């Protein structure tokens, strides 16, 4: 009798859990709003990027709602965390699509996560406007459901090479980057830039795992090649630790990077050592203010937050903006119609005006160049577009 009871007891526990799970399958939000799902990095070492992006996205939703919403309804942003892990991005996408019935997704930040969710998107006809996602593989899969809101890292680094060559007279470049998709894109961009800019050469290159802590060997090898500038093709913490160790070894070489990777905590990490480091960025408030839509947005932002928006916040906002504009143009919340609308859309955005090609890539977008200053607390815009004449092949 006892044994039977004990067996039943255990089974009961399991059944109870299953029932709770089934009942928990409720949608997580109010009715009668247009739901957009956002997937980005909200926890973990890279959370700075995601939290800023999500903040920008949410602000944009509020901003648009204050101006009447879209198609007469309010927008609602359901924010999900993928902790920079593609497996979690898939889970988040499944929940957003099957449970919350979102009409579109903004994000993820990581291109690899963006690739991971494409099959779910295709099954459910849900388009996605990626956040930072600079790697080329994102659109190389051929999925018709993915759209960028930023240009590729390849493009960023190509532009950076050209800029440093012209403005800083850099001739010899060294590249130290990440061995993941995004890093490969960055390296390709550097190689292309060097090949197409007169008088430049790539004297040293290497790709390392993101978790590398000790760069002393690499730095000494790079130094031996005598470059004029070192380009860092990896996010934090790699970028920060590498830059710090370069400065600690007494090497005063010019350092270049991209804001796609290097986030605001880079400044905190390096303090005064960050000063003078030049980066391309995904956007800058000063440049956004030169556009009418941008100025209105930045003014509203300043009213609420008493500071200018950062690049990630602008990225988040524009991604939502694209979705909203597409819904308006399509006149519908049907996923396939939204997707078709984005393809034909002329998006008048906060950072730039954007149009898409057949693969979901952006046709030319301006790339601002920025510089760290004031002990790593400020990012000043040097120029709002460092490559006004885009090289033909891109």
């Amino acid at each position: 009798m006892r044994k039977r009871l004990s067996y039943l007891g255990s089974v009961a526990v399991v059944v109870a859990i299953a029932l709770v799970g089934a009942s928990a399958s409720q949608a997580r939000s109010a009715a009668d709003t247009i739901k957009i799902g956002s997937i980005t990095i909200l926890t973990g070492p890279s959370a700075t990027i995601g939290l800023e992006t999500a903040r920008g996205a949410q602000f944009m939703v509020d901003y648009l709602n204050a101006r009447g919403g879209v198609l007469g309804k309010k927008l609602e942003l359901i924010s999900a965390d993928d902790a920079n892990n593609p497996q979690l991005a898939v889970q988040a996408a499944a929940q957003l699509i099957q449970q919350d019935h979102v009409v579109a997704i903004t994000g993820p930040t990581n291109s690899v996560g963006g690739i991971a969710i494409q099959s779910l998107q295709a099954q459910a006809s849900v388009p996605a406007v990626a956040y930072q996602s600079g790697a080329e593989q994102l659109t190389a899969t051929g999925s018709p459901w993915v759209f960028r809101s930023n240009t590729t890292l390849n493009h960023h680094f190509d532009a950076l090479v050209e800029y440093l060559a012209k403005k800083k007279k850099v001739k010899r470049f060294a590249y130290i980057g990440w061995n993941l998709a995004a890093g490969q894109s960055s390296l390709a961009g550097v190689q292309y830039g060097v090949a197409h800019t007169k008088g430049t050469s790539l004297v040293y290159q290497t790709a390392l795992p993101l978790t590398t802590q000790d760069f002393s060997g690499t730095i000494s090898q790079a130094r031996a090649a005598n470059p004029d500038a070192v380009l860092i093709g990896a996010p934090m913490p790699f970028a920060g630790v590498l830059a710090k160790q370069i400065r600690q070894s007494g090497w005063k070489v010019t350092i270049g990077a991209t804001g796609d990777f290097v986030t605001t905590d880079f400044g905190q990490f390096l303090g005064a050592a960050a000063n003078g480091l030049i980066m391309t960025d995904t956007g800058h408030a000063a440049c956004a203010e030169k556009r009418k839509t941008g100025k209105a947005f930045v003014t509203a932002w300043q009213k609420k937050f008493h500071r200018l928006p950062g690049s990630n916040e602008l990225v988040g906002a524009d991604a939502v903006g694209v979705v909203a504009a597409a819904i308006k143009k399509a006149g519908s919340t049907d996923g396939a119609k939204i997707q078709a609308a984005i393809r034909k859309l002329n998006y008048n955005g906060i950072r730039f005006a954007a149009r898409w090609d057949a693969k979901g890539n952006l046709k030319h977008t301006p790339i601002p160049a920025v510089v760290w200053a004031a002990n790593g607390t400020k990012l000043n815009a040097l120029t709002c577009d460092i490559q006004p004449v885009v090289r033909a092949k891109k």
Partner: protein
Amino acid sequence: MRVGDLPQQIVFGLGLGAIYALVAIGYSLVYRTMGLLSFVQPQFVMLGSVFGYTGLVTLDLPLWLAAVPVGVATALVAVLIDQVGLRPIRRRGGAEIAMILATVAWGIVLVEIVRQSWAYGPSALNLRSTARPPFHLLGIEVRWDTVGSLATAGVLAAGLALFLRRTSSGRALRAVGESSRTASLMGIHVERTLALAAAISGFLGGVAGLLVGYLFSAGISTGTIGVKALAAAVIGGFGNVPGAVVGGLVLGIFDNVVAADVSATWRDAIVYGLIIVVLIVRVGGLVGRRVFSRV
């Protein structure tokens, strides 16, 4: 492979090796006294880097002074985990599997607590980026960091050796390591001694973490260095405390040379593979005497 580069890479590797040595001593000491493979040891390195941030940045202490409170704080956590998490298992007669799993579990708990509450992301403890420039010895660049790490590890290892040989607590540790039953029959308070072993391994791990934070960065990822240090303990003979020091230096050099001259990408995989190879070939490690521990 650049042969001329080798002495330089060896010197770079010694600094890393000193850190590995500190952590490896912890692993071997705990195994020797408790018979336990502790997966919480690498997280003491992580804690050390995090506490180090408080000491160096928030309180602005100089490095050598910060080592003591950082080490002590980590040691306290180690003792706490031992008494709250492991002692009850010992008391109920739990098997080895339970103990190992418990340390894995506690290791995860520590990582997650820090992940959730550590607001700074990866942080640099050494904010003075203009460190003293390295000096040159026989044409090889030697950084002051390397000297500092080696000095720290040397002092602590020597101190531990003296402690084990000269003090009664130290002798108690060695006695319990031989046989806990015999030790308790001789009047040694076994539980207290085990707690001491936990404290020492925590202290060493914490100081190692402080150095890691100073040299590289602080935060959750520093646990990886602690994990790789397991290879150092194995090379030196798992359970062999002096061997751990040698193993640490050997691993530091090996790791650095592999990273610089073989492949930076495969560096970690090779170190983990090394653990397996050393275990298969020679359970006693490459350094210590062969210890037969067959099933």
